[in-house]
């Protein structure tokens, strides 16, 4: 199960990419605002290393990992620390996932049922991470508020799922800054109760782009339950060869 944690990387990269282009003051319709942000992410390839902290009222666990991504479909994540977990990895290619555990020296293809489960230890679910362009397709978008924050305008965009879209949330809200940094993503259930919030902080230049260095998913009912992911390093590449997204690389990740 631990392997699934690597997928937390994806939204972080998504957020990162979304905020990658520093736009001017815009007056876009809501859907275009979201699309504009999303388009900047699409197609990018990246290599990053990050530290993930799962915090609970009684305990806390920290892992470090390397991640290679290409577009919003392909990703491979390998744990580098602590030593106990080193070498555990997950590969995502399209809709399929594999995990590798060095102790049993075996690559296991994850059954689809497992992929739709929330990962047990953390506050990210697989569906939080694998959403790709569903954020454009499955929702209707509406700017409900413009907030002046220092020199920036922050748009509060409400996302309402289309009736038959496979989305569990009642509504979602995005806080998008006018330079396309997504500051916050709020998930509401169908009674309008806030369930969890993804907060982006420490926005700075990373890999040549303006990105949130730290992203935290917090459970609304208990602020002591959160998962924090912070970038230690990040670089963007124009392309990433196929060999990274193979089972062989998962077993033996030599960059």
């Amino acid at each position, binding site marked *: 199960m631990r392997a699934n944690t690597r997928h937390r990387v994806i939204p972080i990269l998504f957020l990162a990419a979304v905020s990658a282009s520093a736009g001017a003051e815009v007056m876009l319709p809501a859907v275009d605002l979201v699309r504009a942000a999303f388009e900047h992410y699409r197609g990018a390839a990246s290599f990053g290393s990050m530290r993930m902290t799962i915090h609970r009222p009684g305990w806390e666990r920290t892992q470090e990992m390397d991640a290679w991504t290409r577009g919003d479909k392909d990703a491979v994540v390998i744990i580098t620390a602590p030593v106990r977990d080193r070498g555990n990895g997950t590969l995502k290619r399209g809709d399929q996932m594999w995990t590798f555990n060095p102790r049993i020296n075996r690559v296991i293809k994850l059954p*689809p049922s497992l992929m739709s489960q*929330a990962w047990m230890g953390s506050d990210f*679910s697989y569906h939080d991470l694998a959403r790709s362009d569903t954020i454009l397709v499955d929702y209707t978008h509406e700017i409900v508020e413009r907030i002046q924050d220092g020199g920036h305008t922050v748009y509060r965009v409400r996302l309402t799922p289309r009736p038959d879209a*496979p989305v*569990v949330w009642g509504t979602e809200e995005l806080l998008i800054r006018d330079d396309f940094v997504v500051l916050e993503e709020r998930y509401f*259930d169908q009674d309008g109760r806030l369930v969890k919030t993804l907060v982006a902080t420490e926005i700075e230049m990373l890999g040549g782009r303006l990105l949130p260095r730290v992203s935290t998913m917090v459970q609304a009912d208990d602020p002591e339950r959160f998962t924090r992911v912070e970038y230690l390093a990040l670089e963007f590449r124009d392309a990433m060869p196929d060999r990274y997204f193979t089972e062989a690389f998962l077993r033996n990740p030599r960059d």
Partner: protein
Amino acid sequence: MNLTIAWRNLWRHPRRTLVILLAVIVGVWAMVFYAAFIRGMMADMLRQGIANLTGHVQVQAPGFFENPVIDARIRDVATVRDALGSLLPEGARWTSRLRTGAVVRSPHGAYGVTLVGVDPAAEHGMSFLADSVTEGSGLANAPHGLLVGRALLVKLEARTGHRLVIDAQDASGQIVSRAFVITGVYRAQLETTEKQLIFCRRETLQRMLGVGGDVSEFSIVLPAAEESPAVARTLRERLPESAFRVLTWREMIPFVGAYLDSMTVYALIWNVIVFVAMAFGLVNSVLMAVFERVREFGLVRALGITPFGILGGVVLETACLLVVGAAGGSLLAAVTVETLGRTGIDFSAFSAGTEYFGLARIVYPEAAASDYALAAGTVFVLGLLVSLYPAVKAARITPVAAMAHV
């Protein structure tokens, strides 16, 4: 003549006789009532098992029973339909369902379930489903409605009108996801059922999984469970084994069948236990009746009665006692079973425990004629056997020994 004497002898000590009579009555009552209780429980278990989407007979694709995946489905639906139409006995009902493993998701959780596509109208009288909807309108007018068990709904923190997302594997092996709206909530006897099964319309599921008109199972409910093997045999002859598998309820829920079969044995064991307890009292009181009449037995021996005559007399006395006791016990049991059979015995206070065994919350005892016969028979036959001991003792008394007896 002998009978009259035996009857009078019995009532020379009315209190002693009444006490032992009471023991026999209570014993017979306990035997019959236990059998009736078990029988009621088993009948309910069978009813529940059949209603739990099992039916008396099912037609499935080969391999579906062992591994219920979407690939193991009946593709030739028309053949089964024709066979059922022409071969089923009067009064039989059937419906078809499509089942698949699925994951149901809400904002508060994701759980593995079995999604069953049903024809809501046809489920009436076939399964528990039709009578179990406690909230909402069910599936009747909602193409993308979902019927969810109470317990699962609590886990998902959802209620009627909310959306749930279902992920399942379609015919081509791809994962398909779709939003459904909760249009009904059902209660089942067992909480595990509520957590395991969710229902939608069959056509909706067929479209979602891209299986055309294919189904997983045809379920048949017969007027009587006993007809199952015969019906299954006829269907097996018509439907080729390569494409279809015909199963009876005994094959689908074997533990219920095993319980039913062992019921008579349980009842017999219980009867023997009750009888052993009763036998000590019986032997004791007959023995006392013999010992206090030593001089009397000596006298009648001297008058020319054979030892066998004496033995017969004592046994006849016991027989009178047993007949009256068995009749009284049966009568008492009949009254109890009749009353409780109407009101039921409520176990809901212990439902958490009984559910574990798959038992009902309310048990309606029902006694068969054989239960009475078995109880009365056990008491009478074994009672006579144990009374032989004091009877033989009485038969051995000689006039000389009796005179010496004080």
